Each structure stands twice: as structure tokens, then as C-alpha cells.
């Protein structure tokens, strides 16, 4: 267990929603949590902050147990020293900028003067010097984000939690704030857990990325690993790929891999058993009739949807499983593409990657 790092292994049931995850964040590292809405990203933050109590598990930071259901330990949020920056910042509207940032130190017993000095220091460090006595309504989105960050950091946290740091910013501000934040987090030395809805933000800010889907982690790795070997629908879609879980039969050379109702033919000498099959939509050819030729994977199916992309058409088909095929507009026109029509899809076995 890394010294000063955050260790998380907990589960909770909230109504019908079940959440369970196990991960570690080292000191100075940023782990970005990404996934579709409702996946449980905010739940993870609330559990680390102590705003939610897990049904079972252990959460520790810097060697200190913040929560341990087995041992009956549950530290309240104020005892944990965790810096949480909310999506809409949750700044105190009745206090000035400096009073907001000084709130943490004050709450922990520092005198007004000492807390104010500490607050001013942090505001300077984040480029907000001069705004100390201002009220919140005149500040821009980027400034508010920095005030929220300063406020969390002034309380001397042992871990930093950021909930959608760019959620409240407009697109124009996002780019510059993103690179500034990355540089800042790198220099912080704290284990940082960051929630992002937009995978681009996660990839930009996270040293590693953890994909959360329906309350569970489907994949953890660097962003290169994720895009090269997606292990879940969310990342696959991100990478613009077709992904299937299949049972690969034994043996060598060309073999069968069953994915639900469909049997693919793949080259996978090294693999048997449950595996991922991945191929790009551009590797799928469409035709009105099954044509003789080299592809080993030819499936009849129906068009579900035709999505126009900038330079091509993405055709979503049902061949027993849902598959995406990219064709040029010209090809689409000559095929007479429309939802409901019957087509044949073919994929070369050499285009299908198989991994565990």
C-alpha cells in the first residue's frame, strides 16, 4: 500500500442501485473515474468523503483507516481531512472569497488572522490575488472553480476529490483551465480522484483512468491501454469500435468464437475461453446479396439505424448481435440504405482482434 496513498475497497446498495469498486491512488497520482451517467461516479466520491456509509468495505488514506466496516470504524467527513470540490463548487454565497477559502482552517481551530493569511496565500498561488474581499456574484466560472480548489486545499487535505471540474464551465474556458489544472495537480503531491463525464477530460487529467459502468469497474489503465484494448461497451464506443464478449473455442488457426447468437471466425492461436473480440466499423463490408469471396464472417441482418458522420455513414445492424458498419455515402446510396432493409455484413477474420 503506497504511503500517503488512497486505498478504496467498498460496496453499497442504494435502493435498486448497487455499487462496488476496488482501486488505489498513489500520492501525487490522479485517477480519473469515467463512465455513463448513473454509473456511480459521484457515489464513489461521496463514499471517500464520508458523506455516504458503505455497506461493507475499507477506505484508507495515508495508512489511516477512514472507514472499515469489519472493524466498526467510520470517520465522519470533518475528521477525514479530504478536499472535495463539487461540480457546481458549493461556494458559500454569504461569505467573501477569502472567507470561503479560510472556512476550512477556521473550522479546524485556527484564529481568524491565521486562517485569513493562509487563505490569501492559496488565492495568490492560484492566481486569484486581489479578489479576496469580493463577493461571489461577480466572478467568472473559471475563477469560481479556482476559489473552490483553493478552499479545498487550504484545509490541508490528505486526498483531493474533484467532481466534474469542467461541468460548470463553457467550452471556451474549458481548454485553458484543463491544462492549468493538470499542471497544478501534478505539483500537488496528493492522491487525487477525479470524476469526469467527458472521456476527453479524463484522458487529459488522469494518470490512469478507471471506467465505471452500472456500479462496477470494467477497466482500469492508462488511456493508451484503454483505447488499445477496450474491455467494456463504454470505452469501445469511445474508441469507435465494435466490441463483443465471446467464447473462443480451443485449437489453432481459424476458429470459432460464439458471441451470443452469432458465431465469428477468428484467428487466435493463443486464446481460448472467454475473450473480447474487437474490430472497427470500417472493417465491415455490406452487400445486398451474399457474395463469394475471402471473408470468413458473413452474416445476414437488418438495418436498425443509419447515422450520418462527417465523411461517411455509420450503419447500425442487427445480425443476431448489434454491429456497426461504416460505408461511404456513395455506397450507401447504391445500397438503398434505410432502416429495416435486409443486408449481408462481412468481416475479415484478419481484422478481428482477440484478447482476454
Amino acid at each position, binding site marked *: 500500500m503506497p504511503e500517503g496513498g488512497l486505498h478504496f475497497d467498498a460496496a453499497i446498495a442504494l435502493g435498486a442501485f448497487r455499487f462496488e469498486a476496488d482501486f488505489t491512488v498513489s500520492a501525487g497520482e490522479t485517477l480519473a473515474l469515467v463512465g455513463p451517467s448513473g454509473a456511480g461516479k459521484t457515489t464513489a466520491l461521496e463514499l471517500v468523503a464520508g*458523506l455516504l456509509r458503505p455497506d461493507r468495505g475499507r477506505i484508507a488514506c495515508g495508512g489511516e483507516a477512514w472507514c472499515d466496516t469489519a472493524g466498526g470504524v467510520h470517520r*465522519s467527513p470533518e475528521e*477525514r481531512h479530504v478536499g*472535495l470540490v463539487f461540480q457546481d463548487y458549493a461556494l458559500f*454565497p454569504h461569505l467573501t472569497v477569502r472567507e470561503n477559502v479560510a472556512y476550512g482552517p477556521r473550522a479546524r481551530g485556527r484564529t481568524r488572522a491565521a486562517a485569513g493569511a493562509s487563505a490569501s496565500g492559496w488565492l495568490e498561488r492560484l492566481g486569484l490575488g486581489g479578489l479576496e474581499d469580493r463577493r461571489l456574484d461577480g466572478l467568472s466560472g473559471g475563477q469560481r472553480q479556482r476559489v473552490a480548489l483553493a478552499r*479545498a486545499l487550504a484545509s490541508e487535505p490528505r486526498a483531493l476529490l474533484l467532481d466534474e471540474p469542467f461541468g460548470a464551465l463553457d467550452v471556451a474556458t474549458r481548454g485553458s483551465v484543463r491544462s492549468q489544472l493538470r499542471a497544478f495537480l501534478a505539483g500537488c503531491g496528493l492522491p487525487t480522484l477525479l470524476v469526469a463525464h467527458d472521456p476527453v477530460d479524463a484522458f487529459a487529467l488522469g494518470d490512469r483512468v478507471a471506467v465505471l459502468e452500472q456500479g462496477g469497474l470494467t477497466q482500469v489503465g492508462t488511456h493508451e491501454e484503454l483505447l488499445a484494448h477496450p474491455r467494456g461497451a463504454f470505452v469501445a464506443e469511445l474508441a469507435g469500435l465494435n466490441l463483443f464478449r465471446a467464447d473462443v473455442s480451443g485449437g489453432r488457426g481459424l476458429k470459432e468464437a460464439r458471441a451470443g447468437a452469432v458465431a465469428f471466425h477468428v484467428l487466435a492461436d493463443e486464446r481460448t475461453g472467454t475473450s473480447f473480440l474487437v474490430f472497427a466499423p470500417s472493417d465491415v463490408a455490406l452487400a445486398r446479396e451474399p457474395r463469394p469471396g475471402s471473408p470468413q464472417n458473413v452474416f445476414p441482418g437488418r438495418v436498425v439505424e443509419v447515422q450520418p458522420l462527417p465523411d461517411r455513414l455509420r450503419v447500425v445492424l442487427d445480425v443476431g448481435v448489434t454491429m456497426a458498419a461504416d460505408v461511404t455515402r456513395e455506397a450507401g446510396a447504391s445500397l438503398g440504405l434505410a432502416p429495416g432493409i435486409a443486408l449481408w455484413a462481412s468481416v475479415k477474420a484478419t481484422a478481428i482482434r482477440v484478447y482476454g
Partner: protein
Amino acid sequence: MASAERPPAALWLASSVLVVYITLPLAALLLVLPPGELLEHLRSPMALRALWLSVKTTLVATLLAVLLGTPLAYLLARFSFRGRDVLDTLVDLPITIPPVVAGVALLLAFGRRGLLGRHLDVLGASVAFTTVAVVMAQLLIASPFFVKAARAGFESVDTRLEAAARTLGASPWRVFWTVTVPLARPALLSGVVLAWARALSEFGATMMFAGNFPGRTQTLTLAVMTALESDLETAVAVSALSLGLALVALVAAKRMAGRWSVPRA
């Protein structure tokens, strides 16, 4: 949504009936006696005693309503638990039952032979028909007004702000005083004013439980009733004073509630 158009004449006409009906008696109250005479009758011993008693008792009753009502308002605002709806209805009850009935109820509970009162009587302490009874009647009738306003005020405070304060190291007690109360302040003040105004105008419960003893339990409102029998001018003067106080309370409450919308950060 208020329309920018001017109201049609027919609407004005239809509305005017009620407006006149409300204005006429209130105006009569203020116009029947010339101001000089009004003030003179207010300086009568009966009026002054009643005024002083009302001020004392309503202040104590309002203070108690705030001290006892704040925890309840916070409980109702922030937590869900079994029986919450029952509690909610209970708090509304004193507003809906006839005040005289509330007074009878107080007698049955705290009177000399009442549920609790008989035990107090044994100790030599009897509350019915004393000044304490006035405060008790006012507290019963007026505290729901404060609780409702305070609850609405607490509910309007974003719980995320409270959560943020907790993560910054503040205990729940500290969070309450440094975040919740400052942000709920307009509603809390408005609740105080409303409760005070209601306590001031209390009549039925006070009459039943505290009686109408000058200097001891005769509040401004009770004094009006007594004065009507013998000294009409004093009755009018005290009534006008009560109207004036009600007006002040109303304006104050409206202004405080108007500052409700705290800037959202």
C-alpha cells in the same frame, strides 16, 4: 406571472367591493377619534398596563417559540422518519383549531385539576389564570408560525453547502451556525415577526386559560373587550394601537421575506 397589460375596468370594479369592505372598518378605527384624543386614552392606566403586559408576555413567548421551535423545524426540514407526517400535522393543529378550544385544552392539561396541573397544584404551583398562563397560551398559538417559516428557511438552504462545510472540517453544530442559519436568516426573522404578531393578537386561548385580570392577564386584546363595556374611547384607542402594531409586523415580515433570495454562488 404578472401581466404587463393594464387591468380591464371590469376587473377593477369587481375587486373594489372586497377592497372597500376591508378598508372601511380599518379606516373607521383610525378616523373615529382625533389623534390627540387617541394618544390621551392610550395613556390611561388600563391601556398602559395592558400594553406593558402584552409586550412582556409576547417577547417571552416568542423567545420560547424560537428556542423550542428551531430544533423541531430543523428536524422536519432535514430528516425523514416514521411519523413525520403526523408530527407535521401536529405542528399545524394549533393554527386550525379555534383558539377558545385551545384555551379549554390548556385548562384540561394544566388547570388545577388538569392532567399535569393536579401534580403542580400539589407542589403549590398553579399556572392557570396567572401571567405564566398568558405566555403559555401565546406560545401554543404562535409557535407553529415560527416553526413553519423556519422549516421553509432551512429547506431552502442547499444541503450541498452543508456537506461542503463538513468536508472542510466543520462539525454539524458548527455547520448549523456558520452556514445554515446565516442562509436561512430572512425566513427565520420573518417567522419571528409572524409569531410575535400572532401572540400579540391572541384572545380566545388567553381568555379561557389565563382569564381577564387587569395587570396580571389582561393583554391589549382582552383590554379592548373589557373597555368596550365602559369606556368606548379607550377601546378604540387600544384597537387602533393594535392595528398599528399589526401593520408594522406585516411590513417587517414582508421586507424580510423579500430578501429571501440569497445570491446563489
